[in-house]
């Protein structure tokens, strides 16, 4: 890991200034992704994982604002770039896959029109060459008979097929970074497996770095190289996927993993995390997880817990489960 990471997010804070108060959706998030690597950004709804993704692409609209922090993409700080420069990067060097492919696809334009447009917006090549590129991109994501799909409208395709087209468009300009926001949540398991397979292949082949945002730990366990777990706007634990899944250090990660039904505990009670996620409007002074944490100590409620390095991972907890992980 000698080369600089493709993306480095450093202490990012994205807040929403609403009438009810300041919603700290993202509050000091740091992580990095290297070329050809898949980072899983895991969290429950309201943890700020999608807003983190939107912040990277500069898609935050008022009342939202990136308050502080840096988003370094190959040396450039995206948070300070002007709109023009951002636009030349978006869809070209950085692209995004959304949960609902109909958000990406224009329902009244044919697939070829939309794909060619994406190519021509960033590159000065002929229409024919762009069309050929579109055909290749569709074939790459495993769409059978790409020539026929090119002249179809989005409504003529199934959900899984649409998501593949969206992925093909995201990869068409061979980007350095792809942000995928729950791209398989709306799909069936057999289709999900196909999409995961193709996403993994594409990253390995093209050396594209990917941030895969999801709430599904089982999906990310098999897909990602590294995992960052988010809770109430902060990354509470980050490390390699194998280590985090096998030996979680943060009590929240531990609880989250215990909540997933697996084969060997069939019929037994699942370990559940009591209570629910706190409102982002008034987060406690200390650790946001303190109220639900089984290991809570006095100091957890008093001050913010800084991120510390333990066993090669960064953990935001003053009483991490180190003994369990080492054992």
């Amino acid at each position, binding site marked *: 890991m000698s080369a600089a990471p493709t993306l480095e997010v450093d202490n990012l804070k994205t807040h929403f200034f609403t009438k009810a108060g300041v919603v700290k959706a993202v509050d000091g998030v740091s992580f990095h992704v290297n070329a050809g690597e898949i980072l899983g950004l895991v969290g*429950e*709804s309201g943890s700020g994982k999608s807003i983190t993704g939107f912040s990277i692409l500069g898609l935050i609209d008022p009342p939202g604002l990136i308050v502080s922090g840096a988003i370094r993409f190959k040396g450039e700080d995206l948070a300070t770039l002007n709109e023009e420069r951002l636009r030349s990067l978006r869809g070209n060097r950085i692209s995004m896959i959304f949960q609902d492919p109909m958000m990406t696809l224009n329902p009244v334009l044919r697939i070829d029109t939309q794909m060619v447009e994406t190519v021509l917006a960033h590159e000065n090549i002929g229409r024919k060459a762009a069309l050929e590129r579109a055909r290749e991109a569709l074939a790459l994501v495993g769409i059978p008979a790409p020539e026929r799909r090119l002249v179809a409208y989005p409504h003529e395709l*199934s959900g*899984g*097929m649409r998501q593949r087209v969206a992925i093909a468009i995201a990869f068409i300009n061979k980007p350095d970074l792809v942000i995928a926001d729950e791209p398989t949540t709306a799909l*069936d*398991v*057999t*289709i*999900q*497996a*196909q999409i*995961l*397979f193709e996403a*993994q292949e594409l990253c390995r082949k093209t050396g594209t770095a990917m941030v895969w945002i999801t*709430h*599904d*730990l*089982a*999906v990310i*366990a*098999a897909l990602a190289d590294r995992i960052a777990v988010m809770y109430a706007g902060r990354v509470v634990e980050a490390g390699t*996927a*194998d280590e985090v*899944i*096998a030996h979680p250090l943060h009590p929240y990660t531990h*609880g*989250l*993993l*215990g*909540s*997933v*039904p*697996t*084969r*060997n*505990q*069939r*019929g*037994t*009670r*699942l*370990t*559940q*995390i009591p209570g*629910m*996620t706190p409102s982002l409007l008034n987060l406690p002074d200390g650790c946001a997880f303190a109220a639900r944490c089984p290991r809570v100590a006095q100091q957890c409620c008093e001050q913010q817990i800084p991120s510390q390095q333990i066993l090669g991972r960064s953990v935001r907890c003053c009483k991490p489960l180190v003994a369990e992980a080492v054992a």
Partner: protein
Amino acid sequence: MITTVPVAVATAAPIIEVRGLSKRFVKRLDLAGRLAARLGSGAVEETVHAVDHVDLTLAKGEVVGLVGESGCGKSTLGRMIAGLLPATEGEILFKGQARASLDGEEARAARLAVQMIFQDPYASLNPRSRVEDIVGEAPLLHGLTTRKGASDYVDSMLTRVGLDPDFKRRYPHQFSGGQRSRIGIARALAVKPEFLVCDEAIAALDVSIQAQVINLFMDLRRDFNLTYLFISHDLGVVQHIADRIAVMYLGRIVEMAPTDELIAKGPNHPYARALLAEVPRLGREKRKFRPVKGEIPSPLNPPSGCHFHPRCPVAVARCSIEAPKLRVIASGRHSACHLND
């Protein structure tokens, strides 16, 4: 391993028996279509075979998981069993009696005994009703409680599903997703059902909340000796909670087996095998995804013979001609595949 499976499950009398149940949705031709058809345009009515001759028996106290991809007809089957949709063909027996033949008090009791819990905790609660009315209306109407006792009755139901009774004057929008699904469960429980159809009841919830609700389902089953038909696309959840699993594909049940056997010995039907193999798991090893080819075909125009044959890796010529029947392949195990012959 501790299991909560009651010993008597296998021998218990069936509470619900489904025989040859079918549901066809027909899109009738409009006037222009009928005229065009008469003039020889070849316009025909479109028929969707949502459920195609399904047989299913649920014993008292049992949890059966019904899994399949979207469009396979699992929700339609659940809705017919819950009595929300009339069947096109076939019959549903409640405790040995055909439900259609019951009338008066018996029919009412049979209807109340089967309740449904819906997927979307946002859309399935009336936004203009207070929680006490949502939960309390049905038992009051059916004489399970009195106007005087209704308040206490609602309190006890809310407590049972883990909600604070102090919240009962609130409206649905004042609750979180997990709390709303608890309200839906309390509403179903309030009429003292014996059988619950849970249609993707936890699909919309976050993982940590999902675990809470799964635990609640298991507690309720133990306390009230409930029977569940647990419909879900999430095999991980179904494997956890169900005693038996039925796998549906394009309107037909292709395999049915006790969960432990299905996991230990593996599924028999090629589709069930593909489906189970593709469930993401919290494995430590990085797995390469090896997907099954193609997509679920349109139920408007299902493939001939075995519906799975165009995607099946082991299909033979016979599969495209003759539809396989769901047959016993071992004790308690059923599969619909020609390769078992």
